[in-house]
């Protein structure tokens, strides 16, 4: 009897949950790693964002503690190297070389973990985008933006494929040779490998800047050009409706208005959920890498007071590597957010 009641209740919920004639558009569920940070209510974007930030910030305390621990170890190592250098007489360069190796050893593990986490976040964001964009495309097309939505989808999916593969296969792994060149440069003492190291760093940032600039320019132009085409098509449809028998014209006009309103609502809800899901997946690793970046910057500044230039530069290069990683994850997230907002903007 109990089972029958449960079955009946389930069937009732199922039938009541099916909207009679609303366009059903829902954003894909947030990635597994983002679920813990997803706000309960996503109706108000501002409130949801604050909830999300609060939830993410709460998880960062252990990372800050660990980063400070590594920073203290590095400062201690630099202090010891400086003392050894002062009292070592003729073998100054040996102590400095040893110091470089020890400091690189201390910092490398964290850097490696962050690179792996950054790459994983990029893959996760890209995978979520692949689920979100078809939904947003369908929603925009349902509003009459058929040409615009298809063009936006093509640009977004294409650029995402290029950017995420480029980052996870080329740019992120390029941080390792960058760090190796920095270590080599600091260990040798002469600025032999400095140019090569700078070339790697500049190549990474140039690639990211170029891709993002091309993407935003393409999205802006596509939005305007295709938007005009869709606006003309919508106007033509309205003219055709208004020239009909009054009663039929009225029914058609009411129906299209009702579909437009329900689609607009569904699209905005899906878009807001999508943006929050992207941020929930992105913010925690971004802040983690950000903490490493800031702590390393501060460590380099402190070590600059008593350490040698070679060692301080090496710490600075590790912080620069974290900066590059921040730029990579940030670029992918920015691309996702820009594209979602473009889809949400609607037609004409």
């Amino acid at each position, binding site marked *: 009897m109990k089972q029958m009641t449960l079955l009946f209740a389930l069937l009732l919920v199922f039938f009541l949950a099916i909207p009679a*004639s609303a366009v059903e558009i829902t954003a894909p569920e947030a990635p597994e790693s983002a679920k813990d940070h997803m706000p309960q209510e996503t109706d108000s974007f501002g409130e949801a964002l604050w909830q999300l930030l609060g939830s993410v910030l709460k998880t960062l305390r252990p990372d800050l503690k660990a980063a400070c621990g590594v920073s203290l170890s590095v400062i201690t190592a630099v202090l010891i190297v400086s003392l050894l250098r002062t009292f070592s007489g003729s073998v100054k360069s040996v102590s400095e070389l040893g110091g470089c190796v020890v400091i690189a050893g201390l910092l490398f593990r964290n850097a490696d973990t962050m690179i792996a986490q950054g790459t994983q976040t990029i893959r996760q964001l890209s995978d979520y985008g692949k689920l979100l964009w078809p939904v947003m495309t369908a*929603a925009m097309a349902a509003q009459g933006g058929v040409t615009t*939505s*298809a063009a936006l989808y093509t640009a977004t*999916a294409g650029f995402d494929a290029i950017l995420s593969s480029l980052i996870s296969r080329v740019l992120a792994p390029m941080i390792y040779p960058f760090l190796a060149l920095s270590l080599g440069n600091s260990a040798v003492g002469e600025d032999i490998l400095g140019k090569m190291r700078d070339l790697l760093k500049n190549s990474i940032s140039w690639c990211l800047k170029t891709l993002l600039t091309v993407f935003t320019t393409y999205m802006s132009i596509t939005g305007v050009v295709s938007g005009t085409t869709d606006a003309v098509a919508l106007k033509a449809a309205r003219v055709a409706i208004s020239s009909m*028998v*009054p009663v*039929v014209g009225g*029914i058609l006009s009411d129906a299209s208005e009702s*579909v437009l309103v329900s689609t607009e609502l569904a699209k905005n809800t899906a878009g807001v959920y999508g943006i929050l899901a992207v941020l929930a997946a992105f913010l925690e690793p971004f802040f983690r890498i950000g903490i490493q970046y800031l702590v390393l910057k501060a460590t380099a500044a402190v070590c600059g007071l008593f350490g040698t230039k070679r060692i301080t530069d090496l710490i600075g290069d590790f912080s620069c590597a974290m900066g590059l990683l921040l730029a990579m994850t940030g670029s992918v997230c920015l691309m996702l957010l820009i594209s979602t907002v473009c889809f949400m903007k609607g037609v004409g």
Partner: protein
Amino acid sequence: MDWLGQYVLSVSAAALICGIVTGLTETTPAKDIIRLMCGLALAIQILSPLGDLDIQALEEFALSYEADGFEAAAMGENMARASAEDIIKAKTEAYILDKAAAVNATITADVTLCQDGLPVPVSVSLRGSVSPYARKALEDYIQKELGIPKENQLWTG
């Protein structure tokens, strides 16, 4: 990643060879020409991946995403049309029943919409026992106000 390693290695090797050659010929009269030749060789080595660029593959890559985009857009368009059709069908049927009630007729109506262009009502199946006067009045209403010709109004029952 293999190609990147090979590329970096080949560029580094070329740079090393060029460096040695220019260093050895520093004092010879042909040093400027050798330096120029080395620069050109290095530039060719750096730009060599551009030669392997497969334009056809790039075009196919873009076209595959374009096709996916149009597929998703078509899905949205179909969803919106189906949703609008549901509303139009329900409203048109409600309108006919309302008019039938006004002439004291109890009927059921099943409207068929145009599938090619705008989803306007093109035919209707009407079921119920109606007086000749009420039937005539309803037929006129449907033809005049909904644009469904009398030959497309099918009466049963």
